[in-house]
């Protein structure tokens, strides 16, 4: 399996996939750096990060997953190398699984890069203009924590939940949640990209999914919509977060397994 993964990584050399890998996080970071540098009122680091994560989870991650899955499949569809690859004495599922693992690794890398570039952008904005410097929420932490411990205060109070002393952990945790809950949408995108030779089909699915996610937010069934799951992990209602996380992660793993079974039966005419 390791060899198959190494081979998939080799194929990324000089491909446009690495451009997407860098561009997705960079665009999010650039947007929030621009906002911060132009005097946005985010003030504290956790608000800044969460604003960036919202853009990442709702827009850039689904779009990046769509493009990465499509490009990875087109590496084989384009030059018609599936026939050669699947005629090798290697289990077919392993070839598709290696691609799925690499796609997951790429999105994981992009998630980390998004976090790091957001931090760098925030720091740079403050470095260039001290008035726009983001601050640690320590002064508000005690108040926030008392609010959270107060039974009369709603747990869903986002501001309070972010202003706690361990805000850095909360930020890292939520970034990981976004990633893990995106497994289902990544699996769906990979499946469509492998299945259809025409790249417009997975692209349309990804863009359409992202578009309908806007409307799905208003629906009580929105929690089941794969493209909305990463965004739903940013909330502070434990039920909603857990639902998005477990559906995205468990559903994603299950969808990947089904995809492997289906693609192993792929017929090359």
């Amino acid at each position, binding site marked *: 399996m390791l060899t198959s993964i190494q081979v998939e990584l080799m194929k990324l050399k000089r491909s446009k996939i690495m451009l997407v890998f860098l561009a997705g996080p960079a665009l999010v970071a650039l947007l929030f750096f621009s906002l911060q540098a132009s005097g946005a009122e985010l003030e504290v680091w956790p608000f800044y990060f969460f604003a960036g994560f919202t853009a990442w989870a709702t827009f850039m991650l689904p779009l990046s997953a769509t493009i990465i899955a499509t490009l990875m499949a087109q590496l084989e569809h384009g030059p018609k190398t599936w026939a050669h690859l699947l005629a*090798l004495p290697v289990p077919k599922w392993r070839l598709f699984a290696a691609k799925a693992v690499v796609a997951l690794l790429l999105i994981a890398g992009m998630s980390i890069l998004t976090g790091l570039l957001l931090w760098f952008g925030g720091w740079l904005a403050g470095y260039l203009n001290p008035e726009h410097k983001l601050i640690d929420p320590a002064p508000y932490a005690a108040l926030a924590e008392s609010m959270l411990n107060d039974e009369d205060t709603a747990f869903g109070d986002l501001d309070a939940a972010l202003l706690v002393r361990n805000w850095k952990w909360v930020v890292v945790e939520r970034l990981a949640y976004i990633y893990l809950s995106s497994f289902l949408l990544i699996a769906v995108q990979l499946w469509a990209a492998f299945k259809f030779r025409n790249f417009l089909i997975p692209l349309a699915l990804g863009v359409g999914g992202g578009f309908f996610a806007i409307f799905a937010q208003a629906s009580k069934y929105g929690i089941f919509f794969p493209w909305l799951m990463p965004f739903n992990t940013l909330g502070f209602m434990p039920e909603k977060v857990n639902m998005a996380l477990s559906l995205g992660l468990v559903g994603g793993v299950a969808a990947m397994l089904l995809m492997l079974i289906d693609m192993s039966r792929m017929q090359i*005419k």
Partner: protein
Amino acid sequence: MTAIETENLHKKFLGVKAVDGVDLAVPEGAIYGFLGPNGAGKTTTIRMILGLLQPNKGKIRIFGEDLMRRRTKALKNVGVAFETPAHYEHLTGRENLDITRRLLGLDKSEIDRVLETVELTHVPNRLVRKYSLGMRHRLGLARALLGKPKLLVFDEPTNGLDPVGIREMREFITSLPERTGATVFVSSHHLAEMQQMASHVAVIHLGKIVFQGGMNDLRGLHASRLEIACVDEAAARAQLSGMGKRIERRGGKLAIELASNDGAEAEAAAVNRKLVEAGVDVHHLALAPWTLEELFLQVIGAPPRADDQADA
């Protein structure tokens, strides 16, 4: 042992039979030509043999291994080059080979060996998108040769090549059994090439095998013909008809089919004697074996060309 054995192979696409009860037996060490017009079912059969298409019915064994049950084991000794050489265009030739080498778990030295075999040692680090079609074909061959497979499957390997490339490819394929000990299964609709390459041949038409056997068996289906050109063609016709011969026109000459291949020379001499004795001046007399193309058209039941019409 047979290198490839198929048994009652069937494949339908949307209810249309593409392959209809194909039984193949490819002997080890042969250059086995798989002939058929476009759409006859050659590529579908090959793709089933390689496990790329699931047959609706039938069995496939490669060196005795059941392909459906043990695909990876059955394909362990198989190298493939497809009609259109498909490579990762953004990678170099060496990188392309390295991908297959790694998946096959072979030593790095294999890449240099196969590059040398196909004479691509001067461009291994060039991007494939900058390769000519001939170079891409050769890279495809190099990839097929990785790991010294015992069976090489080539699907229309000369498609798109110029005459020089076709000759090089033909010479290369012909040399393979001797150089590598491999069995070669090669599909083509270029009959002249196959005539020069194959030791065995199968002809597929409308999804069915209409002939299978040694190249000599195919030639033996019809006795040679005798081509005759003479000054007084009408007199010659009369004499030949008198001998009970069916006369055809072939390339501007008269042609008759001889009784058998074995006594062809003696029969030709006898015909010549008879014509000369009858006062017919013969200025051309030649034995003309059936070309593979003609035999092929005969086996698939295609009508002869206008020029080849029998007129007596």
